[in-house]
């Protein structure tokens, strides 16, 4: 089996029944997808498979064979944040950061599918993602801003001051 993760193709040795989450984190050492509940209930492990958001903890890697996987590491870098990452920084949508990668990937897919800045539609698209800091309003604001294509001046944020708070959250 093989997976292309953020543009790099890897041969996979784990059993096809191993979860994609375990392959990413343990076989490949790519830790952006967070291991929260391990049962599909929290959304912290969501990645994009061929552009579609899926829970990597529920996905047997055999079903992702040959797929293009995007994790949060594939969205952007501290020096070159993607629009949704900029929106999350601007709107202070990351608190502890554990849910952030899953939230941003679900938001990215929502926008890529033509999603609008309508709060109710965003709630529906991200409805399976849990933020235990309860920062939902800011998360929805951030996705809405990115959906509108807002541009942001981040010079006064932590990112603008060259610290590294916002792209990946906690390891």
């Amino acid at each position, binding site marked *: 089996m093989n997976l292309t993760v953020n543009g790099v193709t890897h041969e996979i040795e784990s059993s096809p029944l*191993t979860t994609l989450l375990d392959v990413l984190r343990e*076989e490949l050492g790519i830790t952006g997808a967070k291991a929260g509940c391990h*049962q*599909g209930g929290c959304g912290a492990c969501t990645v994009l498979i061929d552009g579609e958001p899926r829970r990597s903890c529920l996905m047997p890697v055999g*079903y992702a064979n040959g797929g293009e996987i995007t994790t949060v590491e594939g969205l952007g870098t501290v020096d070159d944040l993607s629009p949704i990452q900029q929106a999350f920084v601007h709107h202070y949508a990351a608190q502890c950061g554990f849910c952030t990668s899953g939230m941003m990937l679900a938001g990215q897919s929502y926008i890529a599918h033509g999603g609008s800045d309508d709060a109710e539609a965003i709630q529906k698209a991200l409805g399976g993602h849990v933020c235990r800091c309860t920062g939902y309003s800011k998360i929805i604001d951030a996705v809405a801003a990115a959906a509108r294509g807002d541009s942001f001046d981040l010079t006064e944020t932590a990112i603008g001051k060259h610290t590294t708070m916002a792209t990946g959250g906690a390891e």
Partner: protein
Amino acid sequence: MVMDAATEVLMPSSEDEAIAAFGDGTDVLVVGGGTIVVPELTYRRLQPSRALMLGDAGLSGIEKDGSRVTIGAMTPVQELVEMPAPLGPCAANVADIEVRSQATVGGNLCAGEGSEAPRGDLQGAFLAVGATARSAAGGDVTEQPLEEFLAKRGERLLLSVSFEEPAAGAFAGLDRPHTHDYTALAVSGARAADGTLRLAATGAGSWGARLPSAEAAAGDPAAAGEAALEDVSPHDDALASAWYRTKVLPVLVRRVLADLKEPA
């Protein structure tokens, strides 16, 4: 945590291969989309010697032949969401879009009885449309009423379900406290082209059940609602108490009957 290499994984690439790999079903874990069984494997509540992964077996897709609809067992639940009631709204009530897009119709229908909650959200809706199940065991392929299949669903490999499009359909369920809860309680109803009315509940017992007493009393919705209680035995679980389900079931039956009465 990495899966035990001890589990032999079978990945058939056609229906025939899937039927052969399933055999008589002994010691084989069937993996549909995986959304129910994968956590069981992760937490080692299941440690199968063989696992049958059906993703490439060609069992996905919805076909229409006149008024007959056939849905492959590996069709994602999300693909049902736009269908008319009761199936569409029932499918939309399953998990969130990410899980629903991976979860399959067959996996949902065949889900083992949950200890903490009833499973098989779609069972009620498919019972209401009078679905038949095409399944295999020991190389023998049979089509039978879904009720008969569900009664022994661990013993056969589901290939597809089919039904005649109903003339009218309705679905009413309890709002979910969270997107990932299984259906706490829902009632599906459908009127067939020949006038036959079917009602079925999900969440009023361990799995979906027809409500024949309610069907017989359908002319009087209030009486039908009360009669539904004769057909099921709701129990306490993490989602709702038996008491609450007993109070709400008649209400849902009345709502479904009211919706079915509206002209199409």
